[in-house]
């Protein structure tokens, strides 16, 4: 019986995607939006049923749908598992995606590609469900690539924007590069344990050589870095904001970018064995937390501010996961998904009201026109800042406690400062957009509140952003069936920590309110060097462009034009023309000749033969040594 719900939760989004794809090319039909949303809701309900089944003490549900690869000792099925971790992830994914689907019916109202959009969006949810429900690393990887592909389609959805297609490709390629790290990790796992099933692998891992486990841990984390946009692979996330806002809310805040955190949580038996790697992950996380928060301080693009905030919060999650507090990471992942998605959807409302204007400096005083959006975004911001009793307070506070408990005071200090910055930039955005003078009037905007049902669609997230943290004890009890419990050694200072953290968050909020209550700061600020560094994202995108993208493109050009065409390659225009009579003499870049091509083949042959002979004779040990060092292959 429960298996049926498992399949329902998994395949309802796929059915929705295929249905919408049928009408992909035709103009907007409201039905596609409604039916995909309905199917998503079905998936949500099934997830809730599965979750409550587990909650009431039910057994972990494990199914094997079919065999994917099987031969001798290799056996990889398409298997799915619903345990405490995947059930929690399923709830998060289906809740946010159902809300986003309904929201998108209103948001994409006037878009030509309405049906196409829903097809992609549902396909994304399906991939994400495969990712979290798979019972082995192969299935995880399939979902992993699937969400990457859908993310690519969705970032580039508005393809008439050149920046959008560029951002889509950037995200895709950067993720693929990180994925190869993950693939190596998976190879290593299979090579050493002979299986890819989680249970078998995790049972086997403690008997492995510690260096091997370290390598596995590092390579898997490289994959996680790509998906969760950790430094130095973080640039794609901010650029991904070119996609439609519901996409940003679902993929680039609540679900896909947390896949990296999910991977570390899921692979906790591996990371438990290698605390050093865990500490590295935590340190990187803390760095990203403050690094991204600083970039959010000055940015003038509403969605990018929220994107940097997402980066920063992912950093928090990695601190918790890296230090072994897996359930805390999962807890923050869940709470963050709710309030961050809400924040994005609110930003979407503002964008609609302001004709896609994203600069909060040009807004101001929107609270009059958009009361409910203002309320919900403020609520989400308070939750993000971590003020009692909203969701962010409980989860973020726990992470700080984890850092303090392990005597990692530098990590704690970093996160503590970041908490202040977070509160500051969140309220800078709120103040600039919703309060102060109506600067937009001078620019000729006529903002209006979003559709009623759009606001209703957002309301579940608003409720969750408030209450999600209240069930901490129940959650701990539930999740520690599967995840290790974390021993806190902070009981004596717990209250002090909470007060200190809340103080800095409140301080951040108050500073932002005081500074921005009369609108943006004077232009003078923008002259300062630190502003320039931050607004240019520490010049990292320029660095990548200058040192990676351009040289690679240049290498390709030079190799082709200068080497392959001129030296290696050659044309036989002459001979071909003689035989065929006439020819296209004007064709450029065909200025070699056949003899040079053949000469190259012969030279190549001679070189290879010499090498082969040298190897075969094996007369010279030094040559062999030199070559093996050189090739090191």
């Amino acid at each position, binding site marked *: 019986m429960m298996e049926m719900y498992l399949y329902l939760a998994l395949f309802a989004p796929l059915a929705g995607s295929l249905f919408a794809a049928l009408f992909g090319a035709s103009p907007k039909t409201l039905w596609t939006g409604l039916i995909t949303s309905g199917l998503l809701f079905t998936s949500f309900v099934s997830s809730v049923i599965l979750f409550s089944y587990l909650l009431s003490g039910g057994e972990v549900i494990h199914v094997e749908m079919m065999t*994917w690869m099987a031969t001798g000792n290799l056996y990889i099925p398409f298997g799915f598992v619903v345990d405490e971790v995947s059930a929690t992830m399923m709830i998060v994914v289906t809740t946010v995606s159902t809300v986003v689907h309904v929201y998108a019916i209103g948001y994409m109202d006037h878009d030509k590609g309405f049906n196409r959009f829903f097809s992609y969006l549902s396909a994304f949810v399906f991939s994400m469900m495969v990712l979290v429900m798979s019972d082995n690393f192969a299935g995880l990887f399939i979902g992993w690539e699937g969400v990457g592909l859908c993310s690519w389609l969705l970032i580039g959805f508005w393809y008439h924007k050149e920046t959008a297609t560029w951002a889509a*490709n950037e995200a895709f390629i950067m993720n693929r590069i990180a994925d190869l790290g993950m693939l190596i990790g998976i190879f290593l796992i299979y090579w050493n344990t002979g299986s890819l099933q989680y249970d078998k692998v995790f049972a086997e891992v403690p008997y492995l050589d510690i260096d091997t486990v370290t390598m596995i841990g590092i390579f898997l984390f490289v994959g996680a870095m790509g998906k969760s946009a950790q430094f130095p692979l973080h640039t794609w996330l901010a650029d991904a904001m070119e996609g439609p806002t519901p996409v940003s809310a679902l993929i680039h805040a609540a679900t896909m970018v947390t896949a990296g955190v999910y991977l570390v949580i899921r692979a906790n038996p591996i990371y438990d064995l290698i605390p050093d790697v865990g500490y590295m992950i935590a340190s990187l996380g803390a760095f990203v937390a403050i690094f991204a928060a600083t970039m959010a301080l000055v940015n003038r693009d509403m969605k990018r501010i929220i994107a940097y905030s997402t980066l920063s919060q992912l950093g928090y999650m990695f601190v918790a996961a890296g230090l072994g507090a897996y359930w805390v990471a999962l807890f923050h992942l869940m709470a963050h998904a709710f309030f961050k998605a809400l924040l994005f959807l609110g930003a979407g409302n503002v964008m609609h009201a302001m004709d896609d204007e994203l600069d909060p400096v040009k807004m101001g005083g929107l609270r009059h026109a958009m009361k409910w959006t203002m309320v919900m975004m403020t609520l989400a911001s308070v939750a993000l800042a971590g003020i009692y009793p909203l969701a962010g307070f409980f989860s973020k506070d726990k992470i700080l406690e984890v850092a303090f408990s392990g005597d990692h005071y530098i990590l704690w200090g970093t996160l503590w400062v970041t908490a202040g910055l977070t509160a500051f930039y969140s309220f800078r955005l709120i103040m600039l957009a919703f309060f102060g003078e109506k600067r937009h009037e001078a620019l000729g905007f006529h903002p209006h509140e979003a559709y009623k049902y759009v606001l209703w669609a957002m309301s579940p997230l608003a409720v969750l952003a408030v209450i999600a943290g209240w069930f901490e004890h129940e959650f701990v009890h539930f999740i520690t069936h599967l995840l290790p419990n974390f021993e806190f050694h902070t009981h004596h200072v717990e209250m002090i920590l909470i007060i200190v953290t809340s103080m800095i968050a409140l301080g951040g909020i108050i500073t932002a309110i005081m500074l921005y209550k009369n609108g943006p700061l004077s232009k003078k600020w923008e002259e300062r060097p630190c502003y320039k560094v931050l607004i240019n994202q520490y010049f990292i995108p320029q660095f990548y462009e200058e040192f990676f993208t351009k040289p690679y493109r240049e290498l390709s050009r030079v190799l082709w034009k200068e080497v392959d065409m001129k030296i290696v390659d050659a044309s036989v225009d002459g001979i071909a023309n003689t035989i065929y009579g006439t020819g296209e003499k004007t064709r450029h870049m065909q200025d070699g000749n056949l003899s040079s091509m053949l000469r190259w083949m012969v030279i190549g042959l001679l070189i290879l033969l010499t090498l082969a002979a040298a190897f075969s004779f094996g007369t010279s040990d030094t040559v062999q040594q030199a070559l093996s060092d050189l090739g090191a292959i």
Partner: protein
Amino acid sequence: MSLFALLFGGALVSPLIKNMALLKLFALLILLWSGYALSQGAGVGLVFFEQSSYVRLFEAVVLIVSAALILHLDKEDHGTITQLLFIAAASMALLESTTLLSFVITFEAVSIISFVLVSNIKDATQAEGAIKMFFAGALASGIILFGLGLFAVSGHDFNASALSVDDTFGMIALFIILIGIFYKLTIFPMHTWAADTYAQVSHTNAAILSAIVKTVVALATFKIFMPFLAQLGEMPIYLLAALAVITMTLGNILALYQKSIARILAYSSIAHAGYMLIPFAAVASTYAPTGLLYIAVAYIFMQSAVFLVLEILRKELEIKTLDDLKGLGQKNPLYALLFTVQLFSLAGIPLLAGFIAKAVAFYAGVDAGLWPLIMIALLNSALSVGYYAWIVKHIYFDEAQTKGVITGRFTALLGQLILLGGTIYFGVIAADIFGVLS
């Protein structure tokens, strides 16, 4: 009935049939009959030729892809059907050859028919491509014969069933032969002709050359040379690994800069030759034969499919460059989708054949301990997404130019669906290919 005789006889009879529709039907029937014969256990049936389940699977795939190709062809390609049947016959023989002599003879047979295939010249560009292939091929044949001569002079038997040598001259002779064969596989530095030939001859011919001929040669070579490679020490393995790295990297980097779609696909084909060399280097691993078989199966489907779609696009819409491709997704969603799926398979996206093919081949490398090679290969496959996604970007993410709708013959579409089926089937169900070796 012998598989070879069936296909060869069919090829001999085929020029007599003047009506194209009848000829296609005839060729399909021959292929169907061959398929039936194959399922009954028929092989070439001559001395020095032998079938195994490994070979049989690939023979079946070659027959299926040939059928898809025949469905694709139209009136102008009258001669191509005959040549395709000849190639299929020679391919069966090449795949089943068990000794060096039978291997070299059938290899030359495939080469000669390939020359005849590209000799169907319609303009100067095609002439150029054909001439290049001819000269490079002639040189390669010379190299192979030279190696064969050396092999004989150093006192070895052509007809020994398992290739193994213990003297230096024999080893060098086999290396010379192997390098000559690498020309057909477009391995660096024998790759130069391929970028031009694949891009310049008609796309249908490019599909036959780069998909069928290349994979058949790769598989047959591996079969014959595996004992020899396995007996070698580490050093020549390093040499093969280095060639693999150079070939795939060169192909991928050069593909990135191209504007012409055919040229991108040509360089992508060279890059894939580099991937195919990985199992050669990883011969020590038990996964090497599976890896190569998987790459061959996946590649024959996706590579022939992309060139055939391109042929349709060129014929009906004059699409040649990336810019011509803009907005194809809006006007011709079906063909755009067919093209996209195969491109993604080439890029190695999961649940398409190209992904498992690479995964298994790369894993063979890991298993053989060739870590640096696999790292570079993985990096290559990640970067190659750059140009595959770039093509797809033009298809979907750019505003449509004024362009017609593809009317497309039904049979050509059917051929495409067969190829699509192969790419998806072998992407989802891997058990068939893993099964043949266990």
